[in-house]
């Protein structure tokens, strides 16, 4: 049952077995799984059914970079618009990128201080497969055999496979047939549908919206007595639950805990709540690849563009082998390739022509003889693009440029100084806002140039091309925080560890200090890979639900 908090005005208190806080990907999966059990479940969502900008204001926080206020901070972080409040949470506008974390992400790495998970990849891998149901992923695209199935060679460019892997990232959500050959074939899963269309709803299970959990009250900081819920319409209620599960993301989970309990916050006995914040240092401006020929550039773009695989679209990228990362003390880093959008590219011209014909916009069709000839010259490749559902130009006979853009994305090395704490300022519901004091360390700043050098070596050895680094790369690296968006994937603020001295939750996501508190969000990641966190959050949610039932 989906219900507005104001409709519960006449009920004295809300009671349940499990109170899940936050209706994003993790909260939705947990609700769906737990509501099939004997337990009574309440899912609280701060926003409305649909995303409403009035509720987004509750996200507002402050930002420091390396402990200092920074004039460019508004360009760096967009608290208000990045994380969404409403059923489905941020899956209302996410990119949908899914691939499992690597074995190395879970390991204690001696060159990365504070690395290591209390579980292994093998522990989590079965839950990734189970999560595919929610993420609408039809095939195990991470298997090497997939290359043969879609007619590509896995090592077409003869890159040194002792150094790099080519890995597919899958976009969550089945494609609609009509999306082939459109500029954007996005049909990303919005988790809201699992709540709105829930088929296993029992009367005692409730999804309550406009219900922000502002505080968890505990007499002794060992057990939560109840939670305080507020709406933007002035309603306040208490919720009594046998167990609370916080699944409201890397910013809100520490914020709730620091606003709760007594003294320095709930579950914060060792001053770890909010610490070890990690984002995803990334940039498209660090380096470029200049291929030795236009044909090589075209081949690269063909392989590293979007591919339709079964019911999904997938895109490969380069990652570095475990042994190579170990040998060179690298952060786990992903490299994507992107060509330039050329409006006079034959594939784009053909796409536009096709769209105009399908939409009967005959007035728009105004092709020059040269453009017709370009289409005719490349007709085989264009037909292959349509057949395979490719979305980017590839394999054409007249590729436009040797230059290929490189998108760099890396994990961030966890550091205790990188943290979230409470500001003195309060939001509309009386909760203290957050301050993110974001710190990058030397490893984060050395990694881009190391990666550029290794890529130059790999592409040079394979006679593919040369790596050109940005003119002012050192300056860019020194001001890394100023040139990227840190707000997309907040992680690590209530990290998982077997030892209570090192973490907020144990390997089963249960608090080390509060006997009826669980956390399921990217905030429990000790390290964050370079992959988007949502798929791993989903796997953790399924694992937790099976642990609890």
């Amino acid at each position, binding site marked *: 049952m989906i219900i507005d908090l104001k409709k519960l005005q006449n009920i004295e208190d809300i009671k349940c077995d499990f109170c899940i806080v936050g209706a994003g990907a993790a909260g939705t999966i947990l609700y769906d799984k737990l509501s099939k059990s004997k337990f009574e479940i309440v899912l609280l969502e701060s926003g409305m059914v649909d995303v409403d900008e009035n509720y987004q204001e509750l996200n507002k926080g402050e930002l420091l970079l390396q402990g200092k206020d920074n004039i460019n901070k508004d360009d760096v972080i967009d608290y208000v618009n990045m994380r969404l409040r409403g059923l489905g949470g941020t899956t209302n506008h996410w990119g949908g990128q899914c691939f499992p974390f690597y074995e190395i992400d879970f390991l204690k790495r001696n060159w990365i201080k504070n690395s290591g998970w209390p579980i292994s990849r093998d522990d989590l891998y079965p839950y990734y497969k189970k999560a595919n149901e929610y993420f609408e992923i039809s095939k195990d695209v991470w298997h090497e055999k997939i290359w043969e199935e879609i007619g590509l060679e896995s090592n077409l460019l003869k890159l*040194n496979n002792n150094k790099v892997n080519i890995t597919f990232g899958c976009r969550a959500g089945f494609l609609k047939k009509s999306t082939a050959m459109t500029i954007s074939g996005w049909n990303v899963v919005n988790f809201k549908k699992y709540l709105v269309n829930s088929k296993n709803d029992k009367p005692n299970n409730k999804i309550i919206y406009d219900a922000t959990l502002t505080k968890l009250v505990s007499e002794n900081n060992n057990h939560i007595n109840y939670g305080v819920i507020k709406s933007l319409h002035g309603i306040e209620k208490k919720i009594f639950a046998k167990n609370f599960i916080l699944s409201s993301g890397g910013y809100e989970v520490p914020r709730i805990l620091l606003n709760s309990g007594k003294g320095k916050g709930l579950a914060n006995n060792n001053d770890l709540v909010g610490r070890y914040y990690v984002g995803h240092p990334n940039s498209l401006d660090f380096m470029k690849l*200049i291929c*030795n020929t236009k044909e090589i550039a075209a081949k690269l773009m063909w392989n590293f563009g979007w591919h339709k695989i079964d019911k999904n679209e997938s895109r490969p990228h380069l990652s570095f082998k475990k042994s190579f990362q170990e040998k060179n003390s690298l952060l786990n880093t992903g490299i994507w390739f992107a060509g330039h959008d050329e409006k006079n590219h034959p594939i784009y011209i053909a796409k536009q022509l096709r769209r105009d014909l399908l939409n009967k916009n005959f007035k728009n069709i105004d092709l020059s003889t040269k453009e017709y000839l370009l289409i005719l010259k490349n007709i085989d490749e264009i037909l292959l693009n349509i057949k395979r559902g490719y979305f980017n130009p590839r394999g054409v006979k007249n590729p436009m440029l040797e*230059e290929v853009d490189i998108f760099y994305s890396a994990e961030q090395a966890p550091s205790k100084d990188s943290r979230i704490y409470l500001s003195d300022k309060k939001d509309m519901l009386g909760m203290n806002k957050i301050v993110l004091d974001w710190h990058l360390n030397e490893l984060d700043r050395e990694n881009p140039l190391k990666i*550029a*050098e*290794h890529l*130059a*070596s*790999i*592409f*040079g*050895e394979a*006679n593919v091309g*040369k*790596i*050109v*680094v*940005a*003119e002012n*790369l050192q300056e860019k690296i020194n001001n890394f925080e100023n040139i990227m968006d840190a707000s997309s994937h907040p992680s690590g603020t209530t990290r998982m560890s077997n030892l209570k001295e090192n973490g907020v939750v144990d390997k089963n996501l249960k608090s080390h200090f509060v006997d009826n508190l669980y956390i399921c969000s990217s905030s429990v990641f000790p390290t964050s890979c370079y992959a988007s966190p949502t798929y791993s959050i989903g796997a953790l949610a399924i694992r937790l639900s099976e642990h609890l039932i």
Partner: protein
Amino acid sequence: MKHIKKRRIFLKKISYLFFAFIGFFTIKKFNDKNDYLSIFVNKINLLDSQKKNITKILNKYNYSHYQKFISDYKISNFNSFEDFSIWLSERIKKEYAKNEMVILENTFVSKTEVSLLIIKYG
């Protein structure tokens, strides 16, 4: 934009160097069979308008790997231009594989490729 254009021209030169020498695989007859390197470098067709700029850039680098390259070349005994080409190609490949590169005009270039540029313009 100006520097991007400049860099592209520079990269093209390096690429021409490399591809020009690959082109020599097909050339069977030479006037001086013992000096494949001079023939190779002299035959490379590059734009002279950028010559001054290239010289300026190359002057910033020390010549130690150039000297090593010349010395290695002299002690090698090639029976044909094809032998020389394979030797050069393998040398460049190995240098890239071992990260033996320098950053020239923001571009990672193998030491041998820098040496070839020095011979031409230095």
